[in-house]
Structure formats: C-alpha cells, structure tokens
C-alpha cells in the first residue's frame, strides 16, 4: 500500500510531499511522483503526528449505551487521535489482567486507534488495597498508566506504596486529585457563582492539597507521578515548584478547562457539570500559560460520554463529565494557537509527543520524518464550523461545545499508514 500525500505543511511549516509505504514514511520531498500510489491532496493542510490521549472514558464494558470501544475509537480518529488511554472506571473495573486485555482486544478489533488500557490502582477503585498492577503490566495490554480516575487515591500511605510499586513496572500513577472530605456533595467551583447559585462548592484547595502532597511523596520515593485534569491556577504553581525541585511529575489539562468557566453553570444545564469543575477566568488563563511554558505537559480530553438520562435531569443528580475527543484539537487551536501561545510544534509536543512519552508508547508521538511510522493527521486550520452534537461519532451527545463555532477540521488521520479518517469521514 503506497500513499502519496501531496502538499501538507508538517508542523505548519513549508509544504512538502510525503510518501507512505508499508506503514512508514518512506520519503519527504518536493514534487514527489510515484506511479500507482494513492494520492491524497493535502494542499494547505497542517500535518501533525497522530494525537495521543492520556484520558479517555470508553465506557465498555458496562455502559455500552453511552459509548463503546468502537464508537469511542471512531470519535478519537475523527479528532485526529491515533492512540487513547481507556480509563479504568468501567463495570467491571479494569483492575485485573482479564479486563484490561478485553478492552485492549476490543480496541484491536475496532482498528481505528490504539486503545491502551489504564489499570486501576486499587481493587474496585475503592482506595483500600492495590490491584494486581504487575499482572496488568505484563498482560497483552502492556499497562503502564495506573489510575483510580473518578476517585482520588486519598490514603497517603496507599498512594506512597502505589508510587513506589510502579517503579518496577516503568509505570506511572495518574492521580485524580480531589480531597474527598473537602468535596462532599460538591457540584461546582466554590466561589462567587456557587454562592449565588446555591450549588455546593468544590474548592480549589481540595485539588491543590492533594497535588502538593503527591509531589512531595513522588519526590521522596523517586517515582513518577502524573496529575490528571489540572484545573486551578494554584495547581499550576505547585507543579512549577515541584518541577523546579526535580520531582518526576507530569500533568495534563483538558480542552474544556482551557476554554470554559464556571459561568456555564448559570444555566443549571448539567452538560456543563464535570469533575473537577469548570473554574474561573483567572484559572483558565493560568492553565493556558502553564500549558504554553510546559508546566503542564499534555492536553488530555477526559472524554466522558453519558447517556441522555444521566444528563437530562437536575444538576445535582446528573453525572459529571463531557465529551472531548472530536473537538479537543479545535479547542487547542482556538485557545492556544490562535492567541500565539503555542505553535504547531508545540501542539505536537503537548498532544502527541509528551502524552506518548508519559504512557510509554514507543510507536506514537514520533517525528514526521523518513523511516518513522506514518501515524499522523492532516488538519485544515482555517475551516470553522459550529458543533452539532447530533453529528458526533460518539454514542453520547453531552458536548459542552454544542452551538459553538470552533476552528480547525481534521481532514485525515493515518495509523501506521492506514487511513482511519479521509475527507473528514471515518474509514470504518
């Protein structure tokens, strides 16, 4: 299979032709002509390495009515992703080799992105004792990222042991930083708006306190820590301090925390209910600055599909979470690229290279260069469109971007030389 991609601009730089053979980039040059090759016209499109998501909820097994590995994979491919980390809070929980292998195999069958299971840190996400982390690491799923996401590993002694234990697996603990006692019944960011709306506040300190504790623990035991969905200005400051001290800590921010604020809660529409909650404009600005300067290493979607009945309710009884895979790159273009905070190489670093490195995915996040895997996306950065939830590939409709105009359209995605998306349409 030979594909000639005509005229893309790698990292937004000078236009070239890219020849793909046997799943790899065989040549990059001007005016390549290859008889018999399938030609993809990419004039004006930006080429980037395929995106890697560290934080995706695919809901299978257990809530196949909200999303399946297949529908989530399709949404991911359409968003320019070539690998996604599937979070462990399924039913049953991905806390054994059996469950992570099941999810991994479903991903292989769907064949749209590499589905990389995340293993639970503790049995049943209950925060009581370690799950068999080694068995999951050694399984066919090759788990390297462990997380109780949705729940915080709140017990400091257990968190310390988890951090230590995964050192032997070249693993990382991805912490959902939320002090549970400070967030009992919490519904939205605690501040002026929660006071007025009468929704129980989720204080920034409940996130920052856990991050502060965990960076100290990670530094103490010399382990890798990854912080999920950082949402506050204070968290960015703590991470900056910890990195300055040489702690092996990485962090991610979601597209929605880069764009939206707690003002969205004014409608009481639970499509805007998410955990951690949408914060203030000052937090948004600090997150963008942190992502720009590398204090925050990666963008991760926290794509969280929910069935209609779990969102079409009063705010307090709705489930937290929002879709993200299909709009993540567009949101990054709007919040980071257009204001000049990140160039295209920066986007590649934060959405592909860094998350692949954190997840230890050797064949992702590779440069666009001869001999490398042809795992890449083509983006039309000038295209603008209004988000229509009904048109999404996800099985769910809980997009916080409904009705918003966003820039950028993923025209094509290639996974090891195979087009998973062409002309903006999924190929399977």
């Amino acid at each position: 299979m030979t594909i000639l991609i005509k005229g893309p601009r790698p990292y937004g730089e000078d236009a070239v032709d890219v020849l793909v053979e046997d799943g790899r980039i065989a040549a990059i040059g001007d005016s390549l002509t290859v008889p018999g090759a399938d030609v993809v016209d990419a004039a004006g499109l930006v080429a980037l390495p395929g995106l890697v998501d560290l934080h995706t909820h695919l809901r299978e097994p257990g809530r196949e009515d909200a999303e399946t590995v297949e529908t989530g994979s399709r949404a991911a491919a359409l968003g320019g992703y070539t690998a996604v980390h599937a979070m462990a809070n399924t039913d049953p929980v991905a806390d054994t080799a059996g469950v992570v292998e099941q999810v991994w195999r479903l991903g292989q069958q769907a064949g749209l992105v590499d589905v990389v299971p995340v293993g639970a840190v503790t049995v049943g996400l209950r925060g009581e004792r370690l799950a068999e982390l080694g068995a999951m690491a050694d399984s066919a799923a090759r788990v390297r990222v462990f997380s109780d996401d949705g729940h915080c590993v709140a017990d400091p002694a257990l968190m310390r042991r988890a951090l230590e234990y995964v050192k032997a697996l070249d693993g990382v603990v991805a912490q959902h930083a939320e002090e549970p006692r400070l967030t009992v019944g919490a519904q939205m960011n605690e501040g002026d708006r929660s006071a007025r709306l009468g929704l129980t506040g989720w204080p920034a300190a409940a996130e920052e306190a856990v991050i502060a504790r965990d960076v100290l623990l990670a530094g103490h035991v010399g382990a890798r820590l990854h912080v999920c969905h950082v949402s506050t200005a204070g968290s960015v400051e703590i991470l900056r301090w910890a990195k300055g001290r040489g702690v092996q800590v990485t962090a991610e921010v979601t597209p929605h925390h880069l764009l939206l604020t707690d003002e969205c809660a004014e409608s009481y529409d639970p499509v805007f209910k998410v955990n951690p909650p949408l914060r203030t404009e000052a937090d948004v600005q600090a997150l963008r600055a942190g992502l720009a300067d590398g204090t925050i290493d990666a963008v991760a979607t926290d794509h969280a599909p929910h069935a209609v009945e779990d969102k079409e309710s009063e705010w307090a009884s709705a489930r937290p979470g929002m879709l993200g895979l299909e709009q993540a790159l567009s949101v990054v273009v709007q919040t980071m690229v257009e204001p000049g905070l990140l160039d295209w190489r920066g986007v590649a670093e934060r959405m592909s290279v860094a998350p692949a490195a954190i997840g230890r995915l050797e064949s992702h996040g590779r440069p666009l260069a001869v001999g490398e895997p042809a795992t890449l996306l083509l983006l039309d950065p000038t295209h603008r469109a209004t988000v229509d939830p009904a048109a999404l590939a996800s099985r769910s409709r809980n997009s916080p971007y409904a009705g918003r105009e966003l820039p950028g359209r993923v025209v094509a995605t290639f996974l090891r030389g195979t087009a998973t998306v062409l002309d903006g349409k999924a190929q399977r």
Partner: protein
Amino acid sequence: MVVKRHLLEAADLDRDDATLVLDTAAQIESALAGREVKKLPTLRGRTVVNLFYEDSTRTRISFELAAKRLSADVINFSAKGSSVSKGESLKDTALTLEAMGSDAIVVRHGASGAPHRLAQWVQGSVVNAGDGTHEHPTQALLDAYTIRQRLGRLDGVRVVIVGDVLHSRVARSNVWLLATLGAEVTLVAPPTLLPVGVGSWPVTVGYDLDAVLPKADVVMMLRVQAERMNASFFPSAREYSRRYGLDARRMGTLPDEAIVMHPGPMNRGMEIAAEVADSARSTIVDQVGNGVSVRMAVLYLLLGGAPGSE
C-alpha cells in the same frame, strides 16, 4: 413580570416587577377584606399543580390556598408514593403533568436549579417554591411585603439576616430582592455558615450580632438545623444560641420600631427565644398570612391573562 412566564428567582426581578407583585398583593388583600367568600374568579378553569419533592406542608398549603382563592383547580403532587419514587425523572413527571393540562407548576425541589430545568421543558409557567440551597422567591416577596406593611417603606430599611446563610434559600432570595428594593442588608453568622463568595453580594457581613442590633430596623432569624453541629459548622447548639440566638435581652437592644421576622418553622430556644417569637415585635404570624396574598399576586400576574396569552 407582566411579560415573564416564570418566577424562578428573586434575582430576576427588577424594582418595577417586585413592586408590582407587592402592590398587587395589597390590592388583592383589600379586595377580599371583609368579604364573606374570600374568593376571586380570576383563574377559573386554570390548573395549578403543586409539585413537591420535599415535605413542606406550610408552603404547599399557602400555594394551595392562593390558587383556590383565585378559583384555579389545584392538584397536589407529592413525590413520595408517586411515580417519582419508582424512578421517574423530573422531566418525565413535568411532561406528564403538562399533558394532563396544567397551566402552572409550583415546584419545591431539593436540587438547586430544578425549577430552571423544568422551565426549559414545559410550556406553562413555573413558580419556584424553594430549590435546594438556591432561592425561595415567594418567601422573599412575602417578607418584603411584611416589612413594607409594618414599617411603611423598604428604601433605606436596615435588615439584619442572622444564621445559616450558607444553606438558606430564604437568605439568598431576600438578599437579592431587598437589595433591589433599596434596603440595606447585613448578614450575621458564624463564618462557617457564610458561603465562600459572599463578598460579591450586595450586603455587609458581620460576625457580631450584638454590634448590629441597635441599628437594625428588621431582624430576620433563619432556621438553624441542629444537624449542622455534627458537621462542625458550630461546636454545640448551646454555643450557637449564645452567640447568634435572639433572646429577650438582645431584643431589648433593638430600636423601638424594629421588627423580628422568621420564615418558619422555628427552633424555639435555638435561634429564637419563645418570648421573642411571641412578642409584639414578631411578625411571624403576619408573614404566614401575607404569604397567601403574595402567592395569589404571583399566580395572578403569571396566569391572569387569557389562556394562551403571555
């Protein structure tokens, strides 16, 4: 208000809207004064549903009386023992009631914002009868009505609201409405029972009840639930009562004309002493009576036009 379809929060009301409700309540009261049959034909043929997800006998009865005195048909729908207890969603319940022909839904719900959600799903009017820890707009309207009745004005009236502001929908509605109507509001509470973010409200905040009482025209005591003690909002009921309760000694430091209010139900001996609740300054019984008039005014203004018109 004439052009609005719902009453969701006091924060939505401008000065003209709020004054119109109070004036309408006063007109209704004088129209009914001395009548043997305390009933107006205004809402004949209209159906008002009281959809109550929380037990609140007094508010439900007040709305029921208000609707009946306007000749509306009234349905009381309590969530307990209904389809709701079998797992029916708020949306399905609302659509069911509307399909049966309800013109207005008066809703009490434990979740803040539930009436706002309802208003997005139904065609008819929605009246918030208390949502979670958010608002209870008709309570604030009846409180404003009572203050105006007793003191003759609202502009410049100094109102002190005391107690569990954090969890109080009554406090929130009163803060916005009284500020809109020109009153000067002071909140007094232990800092644990004030929301983070209270600094953005149009109020003065204090922790010392004794310091503010000599300059108060109105003292509004909020119900404090003893359960809050178990979550360490305060050390003990006794300490709360000593520091923030209104007893006869404290009442004695009020100016002569000052009144004492409470939205009920009261914890006598906790936030308010029995001799204060039963004193001549107390408007607690007036508030209950005024509640019916104010709720009649709200229903009249929302539904009073011809069916189908706004």
